[in-house]
């Protein structure tokens, strides 16, 4: 049921949508969880070799720790690397989620948290991949330079469903601010996730789901 003032006005208007929703019984994510070909992966990985079997198009459920970082946080991290300074998160075998969440309403660990478009991080990503990054989670295409760095350093790129931030927030069990708090939603957060659904968009051999034709 609606839990704050927002929906007081929409109850009538949305009755039909609510009825149709009830008949769907929220089964689509469960179908992903239970499908035969889904792979479970613990993150961070203990060795990059765990990423080699992943094939483009494969559905994966991630459990463990990932870090949110998007435009502004990437800029700061890469500036630190170029200045020879430490970055605020361990990059070795780690997974970065390109996301800027909504604030957590009372009773939730996080607000909506879907992926943002990845190409904007393309100019920064190779520097992080060279430092041992295990993978990235976002949506959309990557540059040739990023893919070359991924192949060279055995890194994977997952796509999460863009625009499904409400659904994805249910798979985040804990969220904690790690660095760059002044950036607001663009700060780096450590997320504990359980069965977070993604699809292999570019594998460690550089095969891409976006290049079918």
């Amino acid at each position: 049921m609606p839990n704050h003032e927002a929906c007081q006005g929409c109850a009538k208007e949305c009755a039909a949508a609510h009825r149709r929703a009830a008949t769907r019984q929220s089964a689509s994510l469960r179908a992903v969880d239970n499908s035969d070909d889904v792979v479970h992966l613990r993150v961070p990985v203990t060795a990059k070799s765990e990423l080699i079997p992943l094939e483009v198009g494969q559905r994966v459920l991630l459990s463990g720790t990932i870090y949110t970082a998007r435009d502004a946080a990437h800029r700061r991290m890469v500036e630190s690397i170029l200045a020879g300074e430490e970055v605020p998160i361990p990059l070795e075998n780690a997974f970065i989620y390109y996301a800027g969440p909504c604030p957590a309403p009372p009773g939730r660990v996080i607000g909506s948290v879907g992926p943002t478009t990845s190409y904007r991080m393309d100019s920064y990503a190779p520097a992080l991949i060279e430092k041992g990054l295990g993978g990235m989670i976002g949506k959309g295409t990557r540059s040739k330079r990023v893919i070359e760095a991924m192949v060279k350093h055995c890194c994977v790129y997952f796509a999460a469903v863009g625009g499904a931030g409400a659904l994805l927030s249910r798979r985040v069990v804990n969220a904690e601010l790690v660095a760059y708090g002044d950036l607001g939603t663009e700060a780096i957060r450590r997320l504990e996730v359980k069965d977070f659904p993604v699809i292999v968009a570019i594998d460690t051999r550089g095969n891409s789901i976006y290049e079918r034709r």
Partner: protein
Amino acid sequence: MTEIHVDQIIDEVRRMCIEANVNLPPDVCRALEKAVESEGNPTASSVLELLLENADIARNECIPICQDTGMAVFFVEVGQDCRIVGGGLTDAINEGVMQGYQAGYLRKSIVSDPLERLNTNDNTPAVIYYDIVPGEALVIHFSPKGFGSENMSQLKMLAPAEGVEGVKSFVVQVVREAGPNPCPPVVLGVGIGGTMDKAAVLAKKALFRPIGKRHPDPRIARLEEELLELINDLDIGPQGFGGRTTALGVSIETFPTHIAGLPVAVNVSCHVTRHLTTRLGR
């Protein structure tokens, strides 16, 4: 002469900000439901089903459909016989946005300066277009516009000789170049005519029209349908994973233009195309 107090406008805008962000409009829900039925690609169907489930969760739990709760865009029709009292109209709209984004736990995505890039922390200022119209009513149209798709928008000044074929090929090219990046299935607003800036505003305005509601001019309506067909032949599909459902809708707005020009603007929006209208006064 109707008097409308700014407090009423603030409350209304505050409510609209929250409601638009948690409640996927019925036209988009229906378009997604229709797409699930007609989509032959199993990966595409399962993505569309996830998007519907996501909308259900957002609506039932009152959390935003998408974490990108957008830049607040308003088209406001000000009846020339209505009087706003108690303060300024623009200030009232921005105050409503500030309150709505705070109270609704919506993301604050606006930076104060495009180059300095400091977050304003209240999602203001809004982008507001005013129209002065006859009557005593104040009609507020609101859409929170996400930037994953906004970034994929383009404008081109075509030569008149390029004609309707030029328009079609440009619109299709914009969607092809956008590929998976704007969170397809997309909704397109297309503005044709006017000046450079007018075409862009028309494209934005076209996104406020419910999906499937065709342009009143049958010639333009046919063009909308034809473009939708061409775009859905691109095999980009939901999330760019392939499939028939690349666009849910195409809306075109036109305006007279100069003898030398044929401006075309394509405003790309994602499957979370949120829009709400409210009417104050008579």
